[in-house]
């Protein structure tokens, strides 16, 4: 993790505006970088459609949207943490906790609870608490976020395994199963929930003080602190916010799967980080945001859908995603700002 950044560099949110004042040549370069992920997504879509026209069938596009719902919701949370210049490795644990709480409180085949939609509230709250714990550990004990969240990742995983007794518990509430099974305007309800999460994230990033503070902190924490922002408070809020998104994702995942087990989050952290990074959000913080992540999630989902359509082994997907992280980071990282990379 970059522990020292050049403090004389401007906070990143300002550069777009600054660039606009600086003449055409810079605009094209900045624009190129900002729209590169969109271009990648379009080219990818066109290539796959050319190779297999089934790709642009409505049924397949709905499938893509459905597959993108959970990753999008998770990646919203991860985006805010990465915008801070931190990392959140706890997504898989928090998703497992959210799904566990939902299934154990709604009607299921392991106990007699039947709290219906209250179980959803509890699950989202449980995710939020996981995030709050990550934030408290990081700011209170002053531990780098990747270590703090590595700890909460496994605490969440352990909690879910323990509460579920190491097995899978089925979700029997028809209304909650309906999140995945029922459709509204042609799309599964889960997709609308994920779009709602995206809208909330977009509003937080662009319209609220918290959103601006997160960007400011990621652009230069020392400067932000001198400007009167409390880093600890913003970090706590950002990690809690991320946890809330993971809780929602846990609800969606449990509803899609029809059950909850401890490995419900397996591979989700990797997909989320890939999406955030491929979308163009810088790991150094302060640059990018939820719109980038939406594009990133679509790139990752379209690519895996396309590979299935083209008959590529599904096992290669992780390999391809790994290479995508490397490529995206290599292309986007603003290395001039970093003196030490750890």
């Amino acid at each position, binding site marked *: *993790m*970059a*522990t*020292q950044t050049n403090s004389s560099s401007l906070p990143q949110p300002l550069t777009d505006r600054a660039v606009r004042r600086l003449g055409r040549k810079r605009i094209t370069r900045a624009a190129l970088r900002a729209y590169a992920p969109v271009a990648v997504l379009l080219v990818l879509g066109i290539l796959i459609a050319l190779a297999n026209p089934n790709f642009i069938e409505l049924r397949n596009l709905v499938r893509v949207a459905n597959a993108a719902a959970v990753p999008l919701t998770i990646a919203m949370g991860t985006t805010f943490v990465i915008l*801070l*210049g*931190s*990392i959140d*490795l706890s997504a898989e644990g928090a998703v497992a906790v959210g799904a566990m709480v939902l299934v154990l409180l709604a009607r299921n085949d392991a106990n007699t609870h039947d709290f219906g939609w209250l179980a959803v509230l509890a699950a989202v709250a449980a995710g939020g608490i996981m995030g709050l714990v990550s934030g408290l*550990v*990081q700011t209170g*004990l*002053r*531990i*780098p*976020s*990747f*270590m*703090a969240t*590595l*700890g*909460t*990742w*496994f*605490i969440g*995983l*352990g*909690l879910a*395994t*323990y509460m579920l*007794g*190491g097995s899978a518990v089925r979700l029997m509430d028809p209304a909650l199963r309906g999140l995945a099974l029922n459709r509204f305007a042609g799309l599964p309800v889960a997709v609308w929930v994920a779009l709602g999460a995206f809208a909330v994230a977009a509003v937080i990033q662009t319209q609220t003080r918290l959103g601006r503070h997160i960007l400011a902190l990621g652009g230069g*924490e*020392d400067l932000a602190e001198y400007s009167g922002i409390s880093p600890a408070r913003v970090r706590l809020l950002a990690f809690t916010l991320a946890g809330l998104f993971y809780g929602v994702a846990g609800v969606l995942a449990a509803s899609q799967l029809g059950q909850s087990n401890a490995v419900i989050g397996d591979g989700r952290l*990797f997909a989320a*980080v*890939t999406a955030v*990074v491929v979308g163009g959000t810088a*790991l150094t*913080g302060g640059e990018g945001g939820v719109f980038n992540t939406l594009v990133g999630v679509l790139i990752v989902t379209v690519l895996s859908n396309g590979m299935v359509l083209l008959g590529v*082994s599904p*096992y*290669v*997907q*992780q*390999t*391809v*995603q*790994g*290479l995508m*992280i*490397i490529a995206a*980071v*290599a292309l986007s*990282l603003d290395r001039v700002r*970093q*003196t*030490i*990379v*750890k």
Partner: protein
Amino acid sequence: MKALTAAVGWKGASSLPFRDLAPPGLLVLLVVIVEIFAPGFVTRDTLLMVLGDTAVLFLLATAETFVILLGGIDLSIQSIASLASVLLAQLLPILGGFAYPVAILAGLVFGILSGIVHVRLRVPSFVATLATGGVVAGLALLAARGRAITIEEGGRAYTAFVNATLFGLPSVVLLSLAVGLAGFWVLRYTRFGRYSVAVGAGEPAAWAAGVNVNRTKITAFAVSGTLAALAGVVLAARLSSGSPSLANQLMLPAIAAVIVGGTAITGGLGNVGRTAVGALIISIVRVGMTFIGVNIFAENVVFGAMLIAAVAVTIDRSKIAIIK
């Protein structure tokens, strides 16, 4: 002196004697506690069994030690270990004993790849290794076609020596001992070892002093990949099976072992001896939890909490200007 310690406050806890003595003290305490709850624990046979069960964890933790000592982290060790287990299980019937070097060599290659991605592309190590870990996990799935591969009767002739006993000790314990001693020697007496400590303690100073920082880092990741593959091979031989998810639950205990042993996550302080103590602590805690009646399903909660606590105590906060 006392006043001075008081003046530094909390730093006293991470001062040298505490850091040196706390982990072995904790280990002894844990053994005593388990012996009280389950008399007969401290016998030759039980202790040898615990040592044997710690071997794989210790090998993975040693791999991680080399990277953490530099101030980085390697999140790809579980994928590399799993890939090595798959390669061993698949190649034993074809290559016989030569499957071992091939599987371990794969670890070396992907370790070097992690190192190059980290250093050349200037990507933080946890992202670089998350990415290479993904690449490796995909390859392992592909090689095994998503299944677990059993090492059949024919291949077991070549895995017998891993499960054998030599000079009254399980051979995996002897292997761990050899790796531990080699690791200790490398870190203390070779140029690479001293450079590693220097880079971990202060990268700009090491660079200014003429240390080839990039080469040191790539070497550390290469060592980490090789040892992770070795751990995967041993695990596969012990379980007579290779699987793309064989080592998935082993990364956190391995990192926890390094940190609990007293190696600082900030780098520059630590060695393989501490990691041996840390690995034994993790093993005894795991054994102890069943004796004391903690549900085994909750073990990740315990390890996660131990990791956070150990990082909080051992971290050198003066080295981090802004904790991100």
